């Protein structure tokens, strides 16, 4: 089985992100693999363990994103590819999907392309379905469990209403959620292998794509209004007394 895991690099979720001069700033907080995409790599590696084959980590991003790809290699991915091009700064999700689809074709296709659920930065959770649409492959989104059987794949989708079992022929595009299992830690050997790996960098012309014109664009960036929460601690002699006071406070808020 040939599996591609699509990953992005984002500021760590502990980062203090701020708007500064219309730009996003995260200070000196580290850039990491998008946490949702760690599950994508984990899901891909699980399938490789069951069916054999290879896992290729794929990212569209700046040179620095090689670090995120190295994390995927350290987890156990066999190869990594970075698509990087100066013209790709204002990529929206349709644009990302077109570039990813072209890169997937350039890699020589795949049996399965695994995505994360969404990106942590300005993620919309649109790219997986859009990539599937561009490729003309079936989309199995929000998979919590994956089972490959010959030429087809069956997933358990985790939806608001419960779990839905869905099946499609390969090649297919999947996105995965946390129920897939905790992403494995990079092994010592994996880290060594990743630090030595040379990651090919492809330009748009390498993959035969042109720069997609952005359709969705940002016009303004703001810090959210400061949330002033004055916390009122409720105390009392007994749980009943505390509960009595708290109940009155909640009712007075008129939120019920």
């Amino acid at each position, binding site marked *: 089985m040939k599996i591609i895991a699509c990953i992005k690099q984002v500021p760590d*979720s*502990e980062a203090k*992100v*701020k708007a500064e001069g219309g730009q996003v700033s995260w200070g000196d907080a580290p850039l990491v693999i998008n*946490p*949702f995409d760690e599950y994508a790599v984990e899901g891909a590696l699980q399938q490789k363990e069951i069916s054999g084959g290879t896992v290729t980590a794929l990212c569209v991003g700046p040179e620095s994103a090689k670090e995120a790809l190295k994390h995927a290699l350290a987890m156990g991915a066999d190869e990594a590819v970075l698509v990087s091009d100066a013209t790709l700064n204002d990529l*929206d*999700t*349709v644009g990302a999907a077109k570039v990813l689809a072209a890169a997937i074709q350039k890699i020589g296709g795949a049996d399965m392309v695994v995505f994360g*659920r969404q990106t*942590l930065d300005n*993620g*919309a959770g649109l790219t*997986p*379905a*859009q990539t599937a*649409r561009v490729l003309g492959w079936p989309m*199995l*989104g929000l998979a*919590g469990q994956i089972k490959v059987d010959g030429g087809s794949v069956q997933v*358990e989708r*985790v*939806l*608001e*209403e*419960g*779990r*839905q*079992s*869905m099946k499609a*022929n390969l090649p*297919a595009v999947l996105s995965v*959620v*946390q129920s897939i299992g*905790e992403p494995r830690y990079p092994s010592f050997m994996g880290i060594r292998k990743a630090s030595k790996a040379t990651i090919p960098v492809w330009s748009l012309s390498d993959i035969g794509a042109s720069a997609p014109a952005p*359709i*969705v664009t*940002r*016009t303004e960036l*703001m*810090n*959210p209004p400061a*949330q002033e*929460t004055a*916390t*009122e*601690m*409720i*105390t009392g002699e*007994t749980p*009943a007394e*505390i*509960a009595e006071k*708290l*109940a009155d*406070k*909640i009712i007075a*808020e008129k*939120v*019920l």
Partner: protein
Amino acid sequence: MKTFVYIDHFKGEVQPASWEALGLAKSFGAAIALVFGTGVDAVAKAALEYGADEVLVADDASLADYRAETYASTLTSLASSQSPNLILFPTTARTREMAAMSAVDLNTGVLTDVSALEVNGESFISTRPIYEGKLIEKTVCSGKPVMATIRGRAFPKPNREEGKSGTITKVAAAGEAKSTVEGYSASESAVNLGDAGVIVSGGRGVSNNPSLTPPAGMDEKQAEIWRAQQGFALVTELAQLLGGAVGASRAAVDGGYITYAHQVGQTGKVVAPDLYIACGISGAIQHLVGMRNAKVIVAINKDADAPIFKQARYGVVGDLFQILPALTEAMKKKLGK
């Protein structure tokens, strides 16, 4: 101005934010509701009662089960023939996929998770949280039609006018399915955190009651889960009394105390209820990003230094196994239930 509003439903059960989208569409001009599926007459009727000027119904066997491909193609075909200016959706797992695909077909874009939408001449300016709510951005979409999925509870729900009638037009389904639905598992009951007005959540703390003695023969892990279930029973009782939903931290989900569908936070659901009661939850950033937009936050925690208190309007330092039952009792009395 002509707006399509996609009414998202699961087996006839409508996602309430669909009506909020309909209300928003009406504020711009004509609102045409789209209902896809089979046997969806009741949904179409409800759309008229909530104010749709017209309802387009694609009732076709190929749409019996939601599949992104057929739903997207049907939408694309309607949008191509009727040229709406705007297509609104409630934000759900299904609409994200179908909007995403249809946008590729129509060479346009999707504004997601929109919490405000203004018209500016021909274009729409959307406001949405990014970076887990740490920033707010305004975006525009230069394609046509503009597609936008709206955040639940961000826009007012229009009143329902029972018995209001109007035009329901049958339209054709389009596209070919690329997958088959094999079934739904009943083991996980519906969890609708997105539009809950009240959420009572439990964290790792719900398993921490050493005075409870689990049934004999359980190993340590089983005993922990058993204790957590007693804790979640208290959480659920309060949630039900207040007409709300049950949420959970990731530690509770990972511990096997409750299913993932209940998880609030970065890798779970982002929620904005009027009241959020966090019980035995420490308040890690990844949890906070999922609930800090709640109007009123109440935290119950044993540890006075738990970071959750910094976000809370009201805090109680105490054992949830004592405070929760007392709170449920007090609420019952005061609400006359």
